[in-house]
């Protein structure tokens, strides 16, 4: 069998089927259409290791769609997403396209959601524990009979979850049900949940949406801390320009699913194409 990806004559576009040494994620010529509308159109960008990378664009630019294509909630029509999975010796480059959605987290790629997706009936701690789902090895039988391995796992992951909650400063609420907690707290719970998965790359979908000014302030320092303490790369979509410009190392701007520019925040601010895209939005 010939690997079609290795055979350059068969697939000339995928000639760069590997990541440069400093890259953590590369989106390559990504396209997806919904009923004739091209939501993402031939988009390419690369995120470097330990970078805080922003994806911006006017409303309806297709930012969340890009995230959904990376995490395989949507199957892109064309293009590839190469990702540096695993740590240490297990490190390898994987093409995410075509992988089952639930296997993405196992590669070290975790995401949050635009509208927090939290289980109302569970406590904050239990919600965070869901982030460790794939690390549990005990079988259903062992869990139902509370055999030693199940007990041991539950104990150690509970400790880890408590640490994650403490890291984000909400340890005191760990046993309260998520339903009825303030939005800001739930956003932190979602963050804590991603931390449980030993992530290599965290995707934050509008982390500041619904937060007040002081919470947004706190968020930017939290993002730095997460990157440094948990040693991971961060890719975020955000509407709050202040936050994006402040926290991101580099930014990719898109409009109507098309690439506009990818550069340092100051350059992006000065970029004519980006300015036009945003101005156009204000006029409408």
């Amino acid at each position, binding site marked *: 069998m010939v690997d079609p990806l290795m055979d350059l004559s068969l697939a000339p576009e995928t000639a760069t089927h590997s990541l440069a040494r400093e890259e953590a994620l590369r989106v390559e010529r990504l396209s997806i259409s919904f009923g004739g509308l091209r939501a993402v159109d031939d988009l390419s960008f690369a995120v470097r290791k330990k970078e805080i990378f922003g994806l911006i664009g006017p409303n309806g630019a297709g930012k969340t769609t890009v995230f959904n294509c990376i*995490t395989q*909630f949507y199957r892109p029509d064309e293009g590839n997403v190469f990702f540096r999975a695993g740590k240490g010796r297990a490190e390898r480059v994987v093409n995410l396209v075509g992988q*089952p*959605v*639930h*296997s*993405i*987290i*196992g590669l070290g790629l*975790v*995401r949050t*959601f635009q509208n927090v*997706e*939290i*289980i*109302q*009936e*569970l406590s904050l701690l*239990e919600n965070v*524990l*869901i*982030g*460790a*789902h*794939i690390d*549990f090895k*005990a079988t*259903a039988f062992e*869990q*139902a*009979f*509370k055999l030693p391995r*199940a007990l041991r*796992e*539950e104990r150690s992951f509970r400790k880890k979850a408590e640490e994650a909650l403490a890291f984000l400063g909400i340890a005191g609420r760990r*046993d309260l049900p998520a339903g009825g907690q303030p939005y800001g707290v739930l956003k932190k719970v979602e963050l804590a*949940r991603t931390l449980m*998965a030993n992530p290599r790359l965290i995707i934050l979908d509008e982390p500041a949406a619904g937060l007040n000014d002081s919470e947004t302030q706190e968020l930017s320092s939290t993002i730095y801390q997460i990157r440094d303490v948990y040693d991971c790369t961060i890719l975020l979509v955000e509407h709050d320009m202040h936050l994006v410009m402040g926290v991101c190392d580099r930014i990719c701007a898109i409009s109507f699913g098309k690439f506009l520019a990818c550069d340092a925040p100051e350059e992006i601010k000065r970029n004519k194409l980006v300015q036009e895209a945003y101005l156009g939005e204000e006029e409408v």
Partner: protein
Amino acid sequence: MNEMNESPLASLKPSPWSSPYLRFVLFGLLAASLPLLSGSGLMKSSTLNYIGNVLVYAVAALGLNLLLGYAGLISLGTAGFMGLGSYIAAYAVKDMGLSFWAALTAAVLIPTLIGLLIGLISLRIEGIYLAIATLCVSEILLKSFEQADSITGGMQGKSVSYPVIFGHTFNRSSTYILLVVALTLVMILTHNFVSGQKGRALHAMRGSEVAAQAMGVNLLQYRLIAFSLATAYAALSGALYVFFIKFSYPSVWNLNLSLYVLAAVVIGGLRSIYGTIIGTFVVWAVPDLVLKKLPVVGGINGLPYIFNGILIILVVMFAPQGISGLWQAKFPLKRKKKEKEEAISGKKEDE
């Protein structure tokens, strides 16, 4: 539990009553002591039958609560799988001469395999369509019970005697104890299962499918787990039924039974183990044990069922979280206080 940390005494010696296991065992002991009452003439002997019925149906209801309450998937197929469990158990013991344990295993495993198939279907079909698709499976089973004379006895039904376990022939009271033991075990295992990783995954699947998937929960796998568990519980319930009632008729396993199991779950409260037991009691025992005892109205044929129906409607209208929800809303503080007092004075009292 945690609230007792405030009391210095309690932090030294946590109240043993906070252990769910002790409460499950107490529940079991309490239920198991009922035949003594009936033996000493304090309780009518027929009452034991009604309570036994509640225990049997509670097993199926717990299974449906796992499916509906935790996984958020609906099924109207409970009756069909209960029936299947009962006929397989009866056939295995009576016609094949298998032992009780072999019969029980077969009666649970075979329906569970069919339950797995429904789990597969559930990936494609959702909501009300899924509910009626499971009803479809149940009706196929029901029609087959009526037609497959050689196995099920057709319309005449199938009879079986009390079980023989390890050479010991059971009678009504000891079979009743068997039901208690089975239900208590099921309660404990369910409690453990839902509070662990697999249970949380079911929660996640119900609460947010996208979050569940993003956290690595394989939807297919967990739908299969949820449906096979609910089916296994229903089949176990059916097998216990046939060993306790000693008969299985096709007319028992119809849509109404599935609907009543569903009613028991919703009335008792989703995601509540004791609530499920209470709901089952309300649906199956209250008409005969409580309402029939009422002066005047209890004597009129049919009236207890009317009251029960009205009760079901009232609970739904005024306590949409079920009886357990009502309980939690009314008594959260009282219970904490009581536990604290108990811990300090050392006085122990059953809730």
